[in-house]
């Protein structure tokens, strides 16, 4: 297996743009015996799961079940989070992420969308151009292409194309959330992690974003943490059910929703008996 470390930027087609120059390489993720603690509190204990390439992997479960912490661990954000301690191993395309020498490279290959939208205090254009710029891209023409493409894919282009120079942090909540998605896409991620993205978005936009996600899975692996079980049903190939820091069950989404569950708690949650 060729790990992403073998990056050699030798292709130099003058006609090509940034995103065409490199192959996408959707991530495959293996998580073994993952335990996450904050101080003395255990947030997640002994989680095992595999996420396949180009899969939309749904994670459902009530609040405080450790879903967000799992995403943080995948991104190695624990290093920047005071008190957070991760044990167990996480492999990305076979590579243990603790052995990644440049954690920033790992994070650049993973796009994250938070529950609450964060429009950076930059212009709309610079919000989306930030990730390419961080990667060393400064060619205005190519940036224009990337920004437009990402904003289009995030279903935001039509609304902001006339005010690309206004502050991204002053857009409406729903627009900021799509801006966040556009920003994540501008990273050209191999894995996209969405954490309850629809909380701050209206239903119409939610549906549009869901359509986009179905398109995106051709290029990347997607982890979809959601509080809406129906959203997981609409999108996810397989779904994991988390409860109180434990991964209760993982199954093919359709099977879970048609009653083929192994654990009664999953059944209860899906049928709305708690949550």
């Amino acid at each position: 297996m060729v790990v992403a470390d073998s990056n050699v930027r030798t292709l130099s087609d003058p006609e090509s743009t940034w995103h065409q120059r490199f192959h996408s390489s959707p991530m495959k993720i293996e998580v073994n015996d993952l335990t996450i603690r904050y101080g003395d509190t255990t947030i997640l204990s002994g989680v095992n799961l595999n996420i396949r390439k180009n899969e939309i992997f749904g994670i459902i479960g009530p609040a405080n079940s450790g879903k967000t912490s799992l995403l943080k661990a995948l991104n190695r954000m624990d290093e920047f989070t005071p008190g957070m301690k991760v044990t167990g191993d996480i492999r990305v395309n076979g590579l243990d992420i603790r052995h990644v020498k440049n954690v920033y490279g790992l994070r650049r290959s993973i796009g994250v969308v938070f529950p609450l939208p964060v429009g950076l205090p930059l212009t709309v254009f610079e919000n989306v151009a930030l990730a390419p710029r961080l990667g060393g891209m400064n060619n205005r023409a190519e940036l224009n292409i990337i920004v437009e493409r990402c904003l289009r894919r995030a279903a935001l282009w039509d609304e902001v194309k006339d005010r690309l120079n206004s502050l991204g942090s002053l857009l409406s909540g729903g627009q900021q959330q799509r801006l966040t998605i556009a920003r994540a896409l501008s990273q050209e991620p191999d894995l996209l992690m969405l954490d309850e993205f629809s909380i701050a978005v209206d239903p119409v936009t939610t549906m549009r974003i869901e359509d986009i996600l179905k398109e995106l899975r051709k290029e990347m692996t997607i982890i979809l943490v959601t509080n809406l079980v129906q959203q997981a049903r609409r999108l996810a190939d397989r779904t994991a059910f988390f409860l109180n820091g434990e991964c209760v069950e993982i199954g093919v989404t359709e099977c879970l929703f048609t009653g083929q569950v192994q654990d009664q708690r999953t059944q209860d949650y899906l049928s709305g008996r708690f949550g």
Partner: protein
Amino acid sequence: MHHFATTGINQRNSRTQELFRLLFMMMTVLLVLPVLIIMVTLIYKGGAIVTLDFLLSNPLDGMTAGGIFPALFGTIGLVTVALLVSVPIGVAAAIYLSEYASDTWLTRLINLAIINLAGVPSIVHALFGVGAFVIFFRFGTSILAASCTLAVMTLPVVIVATRESLQSVPMAFREACWNMGATRWQTIRRIVLPNAISGILTGVILEVSRTAGETAPIMFTGAVFFTPFLPQSVFDQTMALSLHLFVLSTQVPGVSEALPYGVALVLISIVLLMNSASIGFRMYLRGQKKW
């Protein structure tokens, strides 16, 4: 009966309350009044001689008359060099404390050191300046030695103001940036600093106002009452407004009465203008909404 009694107590209470309010107000007024009295007196007695010519011409008759240009020039020079030393170090220190340091014993020690550095008497800073910069580092009594002493003294001002404005940038922005694969430094340079820069500037203006008025730290490290020439380099001695005022009002006989008032007025105007600018800028920034 009962009803009336309560009313009586309430009336007494409200009268007491009014009395206390007046008392505290009087105290506040008495505290603030001196600034106004001082300003009025200085303007009344020294205002007449403060002209552009006074600011831009040399002293005459053994310093007892004429203008204050060399002192004004020296103060500006001292402040500039002090800023060149303290702002980079102070801003970097604040970046470390706000963006990199976690809550360890070392961080607590640094914070303690900053507080104590701010509390060291100015004359002790002067002794340090003599021992360290003049003698040990062989700067001699020079602008460089005096400015370094001033820089050490005002470093806490820069650090504290910068740290506060860095911390006013919401954490969520940093997290969003880190999640995109930005290094800590990239995050600081592209998101945190641009949004904190005006707050930092406020702190720097405040520092200018503190630095310009200091006397004790520069007395033995680089400022002198009289030099025949303007300083040519940072290794020369210089005149300074604050020292000028001190010597004029204590040691020089036959000074015209208006002269020290004029110098004091210029000095206090520089300091208060800078300070007001800093406050005004801070208020303006508070009104700006970027998120």
